[in-house]
């Protein structure tokens, strides 16, 4: 049981070196571009710009596969429902279910959307270490501070959450083994069976949160206002170029949609 979704893969590729803000915004606009695509072909083509980026980032096929694997069932179900339940010109019949041309189109489109979005999100988290991800997010949310959005606190919460995911998983595994030693069984999804795991896990999470809060206070943490940082984010020419390409992608996707409609 090793948690691989959203794992950071240290490296020094061009993608790794991009500013986290560029990557976050590009992820957003890439998503918009894919969702704007009016049919399966357009979705498949516009999303494919992710492949060269994955290669440049130096991510291995096995890694990509591990990111997609948990969503395989979900993707199959989405595809099947779209393919079968959309009325239209019949193409083939699987038992009582009839696959239509329109359904196939919609199904493929849904499949492409999920597939590309997962890939893009995996690319972002694999090439951006959690700390700079939080930094980037904070900077992007900064304008909202005037409206009362606690951007620094939100970013800190995100960093802490990301930081403690592996710790909690490790802990869960340890508690599971300890309870197994007492004859517990975690087979089946009965809530009652999970109590011996969930309760100790929550207690230790709260205890850890309290200790962390005290440690931060002891080091005079007083919230976000006026905090400086060791590494200041700075946009470089590569960031502008990358971002221009992203905007071009959204633009063409939008234009195509207008033309086709």
């Amino acid at each position, binding site marked *: 049981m090793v948690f691989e979704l959203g794992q950071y893969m240290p490296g020094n590729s061009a993608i790794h070196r991009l500013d986290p803000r560029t990557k976050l915004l590009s992820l957003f606009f890439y998503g918009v571009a894919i969702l704007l695509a009016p049919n399966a072909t357009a979705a498949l083509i516009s999303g494919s710009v992710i492949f060269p980026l994955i290669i440049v980032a130096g991510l291995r096929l096995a890694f990509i596969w591990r990111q997609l694997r948990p969503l395989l069932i979900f993707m199959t179900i989405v595809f099947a429902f779209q393919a079968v339940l959309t009325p239209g010109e019949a193409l083939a019949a699987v038992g009582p279910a009839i696959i239509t041309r329109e359904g196939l189109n919609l199904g493929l489109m849904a499949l492409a959307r999920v597939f590309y979005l997962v890939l893009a999100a995996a690319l972002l988290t694999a090439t951006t270490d959690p700390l700079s991800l939080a930094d980037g997010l904070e900077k992007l949310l900064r304008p909202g501070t005037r409206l009362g959005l606690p951007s620094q606190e939100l970013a800190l919460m995100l960093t802490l959450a990301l930081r403690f995911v592996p710790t909690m998983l490790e802990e869960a595994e340890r508690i599971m083994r300890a309870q197994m030693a007492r004859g517990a069984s975690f087979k089946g999804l009965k809530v009652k069976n999970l109590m011996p795991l969930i309760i100790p896990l929550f*207690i*230790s999470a709260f205890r850890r949160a309290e200790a962390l809060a005290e440690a931060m206070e002891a080091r005079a943490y007083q919230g976000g206002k006026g905090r400086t940082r060791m590494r200041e984010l700075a946009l470089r020419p590569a960031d502008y170029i990358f971002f221009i390409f992203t905007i071009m992608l959204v633009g063409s996707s939008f234009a195509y949609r207008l033309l086709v409609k």
Partner: protein
Amino acid sequence: MEIILKDVSFAYQIAGQQLPVLHNIELKVAPGDLLAITGAGGSGKSTLGQLLAGLLEPTAGKVYLNGIPCQARGRSKGVSLWQRVGMVYQQPEQQLFAETVFDDVAFGPRNLGLSLPTIKDRVERALQAVGLNPAEIGQRSPFNLSGGQQRRVAIAGVLAMEPEVLILDEPTAGLDPAGRAQILSYIRSFFQQRDKAAVLISHNMAEVAGLANQVIVLYQGRIALKGTPREIFQQGESLRAYRLLPPELPRLMLELRRLGAPVSTDVLTLAEARSAILKWLRGEASGF
């Protein structure tokens, strides 16, 4: 109950990579053994304990229970021999979850499918074995107890399974001296029952010295030394090579000897040290 590890190796899988922890371990735990596993941090002590308890599956080699090769817990179906091996984890109080002390200690026996009167009987005996009064504490919430009491409840939860082999991972870590002494005395009284064996994992050599009848020293995932506490602790300064601090009394005796006092270095307890020193002071030559 006899546990044998034959040529067992273990590696953790982290992000698709192998992190080897133990290499070619040969080990046997039989009734009457009180085995201490010591070693510096990261030497693989806890992992070895979990292999002995059937909580991890070795990446190579085999584990035999009473001569029968066994897979780790949860892999084989039905009643397994592992039920007869109990494991007390590091900081076992973190595994408490039930509303009352009674329910928590009863968790194991309930999983064994015992009848209610038997469960009650076992819970009471287990709590008494760790010096807690079932009538007084049984209906309280385990989370309102002191740290030391919580640990004793957690240990009772394992004792209530009536294991034949009890494995304890750093059972005294984080307790005050009185709490330590208590826990160690429960381990001793468990071990003194018939046909029981215990495995004590500890980095504290002095703690191990007075209790165990067999010691192994792990170093970088291999068994570096194996013997009785006397044999091991007489190594003195060479224990430092395994990143262990030799226990204080043998160190004192070695130091005295280096300074010219002909005392025996074969000393484990305070009483032994005292008589050895008195013997020298009264001018009786020790046998060397």
